[in-house]
């Protein structure tokens, strides 16, 4: 048994080492994938955090709301305001054209009389707070039918929704501050009228709350800023590990097509040691793939200006889950190789099924962005179990006990695949 296993391991290792294209696919392609995806995500995030985004502004208000917005936008590093083009004031048509053709990514038009409309609205709301018998608080009284202050924001059509959301959030922040300031000004004016005391103007309505981003990790609570590497590297590592299905299934089919598997069946003793030898080599390849990709995250990504992947204290958990993922991928490869009749069939079915399992598993689209039904379906993907376990290790510092259930799911998946392949083979041979 041991001699047959050893012979099978040596044979598979030699075949793999002599298949340069296969090796490149197993190691270089996944590493390139991680590098490219991390660089892409990094550049997208940088775009979102980009300073001095050029913004066109037309302030038709010429009053406090417009002035506050322009001053606020000027204060932040996020935007670089342009109110003129070639020294001449902008009109709305020009602004729309410049934004639509992508010369500017954002255009803001503050409508005429916006301040007055806002004051009217605030006064109306204050008036509603007092009982009707108090009579009119303001002269002239606020007009309930007056339109709301109008501010239009135009975006370059190719702008990503994440960037739009960031800009809209920033603008909303100014609007709330301006609204609050105006409310206070109106109340202050009312106080002056009622009790004759002139209140001093409040300097700032910003930074009144200490808002700090924190992530609770296990029992500790500390400020953690998750880096793209912590998300990207684990996700793409699992994806690449499952791509071992293609060479492994191809190897099984090649052996069958060459008549080798029939010849192996004529040899004394069980073929289990031969299959275990093959599975063992591909399992080790999966482990080496994982190690190379994690090392890339730790040492190569920083060379490209990205934050390094940090493993933290979860090394035993990382080892256990990586072993389970590699076994699951190997088992799946054996099943695909057994049920496929040609190499073309196995490579198409193998790759598409891995992409589907990856998509369902949250590798391509984060689970939190999925619908409830899709979240339920995603839990059926072995890639999802691996990904969740990796996130638990890399982002939540979970110990072995925290990821053990995922490891067991993956092992059960591996075992199910191997059993299914065995039964299928038996059924096929009996026909």
């Amino acid at each position, binding site marked *: 048994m041991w*001699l*047959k296993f*050893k*012979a*099978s391991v*040596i*044979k598979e290792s*030699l*075949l793999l080492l*002599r*298949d340069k294209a296969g090796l490149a696919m197993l190691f270089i392609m996944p590493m390139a994938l991680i590098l490219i995806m991390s660089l892409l995500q990094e550049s997208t995030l940088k775009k979102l955090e980009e300073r001095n985004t050029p913004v066109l502004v037309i302030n038709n208000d010429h009053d406090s709301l417009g002035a506050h917005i322009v001053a606020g936008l000027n204060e932040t590093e996020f935007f670089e305001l342009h109110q003129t083009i070639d020294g001449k004031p902008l009109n709305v048509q020009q602004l729309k054209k410049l934004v639509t053709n992508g010369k500017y990514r954002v255009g803001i038009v503050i409508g005429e009389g916006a301040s007055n409309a806002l004051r009217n609205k605030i006064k109306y709301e204050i008036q509603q707070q007092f009982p009707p018998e108090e009579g009119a608080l303001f002269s002239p009284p606020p007009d309930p039918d007056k339109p709301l202050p109008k501010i239009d924001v135009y975006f370059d059509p190719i702008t990503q929704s994440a960037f739009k959301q960031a800009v809209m959030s920033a603008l909303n922040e100014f609007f709330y501050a301006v609204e609050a300031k105006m409310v206070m000004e109106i109340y202050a004016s009312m106080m002056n009228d009622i009790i004759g005391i002139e209140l001093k103007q409040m300097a700032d309505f910003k930074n009144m709350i200490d808002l700090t981003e924190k992530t609770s990790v296990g029992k500790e609570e500390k400020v953690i800023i998750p880096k793209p590497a912590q998300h990207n590297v684990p996700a793409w590592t699992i994806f690449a590990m499952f791509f071992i299905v293609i060479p492994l299934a191809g190897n099984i089919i090649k052996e069958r097509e*060459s*008549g*080798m598997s*029939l*010849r*192996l*069946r*004529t*040899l*004394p*003793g069980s073929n289990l040691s*031969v299959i275990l030898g093959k599975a063992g080599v591909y399992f080790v390849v999966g482990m080496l793939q994982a190690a190379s990709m994690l090392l890339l995250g730790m040492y190569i990504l920083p060379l490209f200006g990205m934050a390094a992947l940090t493993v933290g204290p979860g090394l035993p958990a990382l080892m256990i889950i990586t072993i389970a993922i590699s076994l699951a991928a190997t088992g799946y490869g054996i099943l695909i190789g057994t049920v496929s009749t040609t190499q073309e069939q196995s490579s198409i079915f193998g790759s598409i099924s891995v992409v589907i399992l990856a998509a369902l598993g949250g590798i391509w689209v984060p689970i939190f962005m999925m619908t409830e039904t899709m979240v339920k379906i995603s839990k059926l993907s072995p890639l999802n179990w691996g990904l969740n376990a990796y996130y638990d290790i890399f982002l939540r510092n979970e110990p072995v006990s925290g990821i053990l259930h995922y490891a067991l799911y993956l092992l059960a998946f591996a075992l199910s695949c191997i059993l299914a392949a065995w039964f299928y083979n038996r059924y096929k*041979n*009996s*026909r």
Partner: protein
Amino acid sequence: MASTPIIEIRQLTKRYHQSDEPAVKKLDLKIGKGEIFGLLGPNGAGKTTTISILCSQINADEGDIFVDGKNLAADSVQIKKIIGVVPQEIALYQKLTAYENLRFFGNMYGLKGEDLKERIMSRAAAFGLEQKLHRKVNTFSGGMKRRVNLVAGILHRPRILILDEPTVGIDVQSKNVIIDYLKQLNEKEETTIVYTSHLMEEAERFCTHIAILDMGKIVTEGKPEELISGYPSCNNLEDIFLLLTGRSLRD
């Protein structure tokens, strides 16, 4: 059949899932110890099916096979140890060298170390392969590949050697080397050889006993010279073959 049977096939039947007619129908056959037994027949006659069942590659639907007195269905592990199989396909790992392939098959039969090395070297020398043992099989000619394919099946010195068309598609020189070596193996090591072929002349010269199969049944069997003398209108085995199996195409 004078010698003690080493293989006895009783009422063997095999029907494939996609076929209406059985490939082998209640086949009875005895192969004597030390014989070179030729199993001949047109395409689809049931030769490969019979051999495949004998090698445990596929299962029979009905019937029994006894090898050296043991029932194949019950003792396949023990029986496989005394059987060597040389398939029609070049069932070798093309990216491994001849030596690596032979070492792999030797290990599969439980051979190792110096003993295995010595067996590989001596068998390779007998087939003119000793200088090319460390070259990858995919660089070999068809004849060389077929010789390595044969050596892989005889490293463990089997008592029964099953050969499915061992000389198909190779030159005369390679064919002669293979046939001469198999004769030596049969004489010196008393290996029983079960052989299939479409080459009637080669079978007539090489085999000590011949059975012609058609439609899954034996249509005639005996020593080549007895068969030829039994059909006065026939001059050779090919004439008998055509007489018994007809001239129409079978596939």
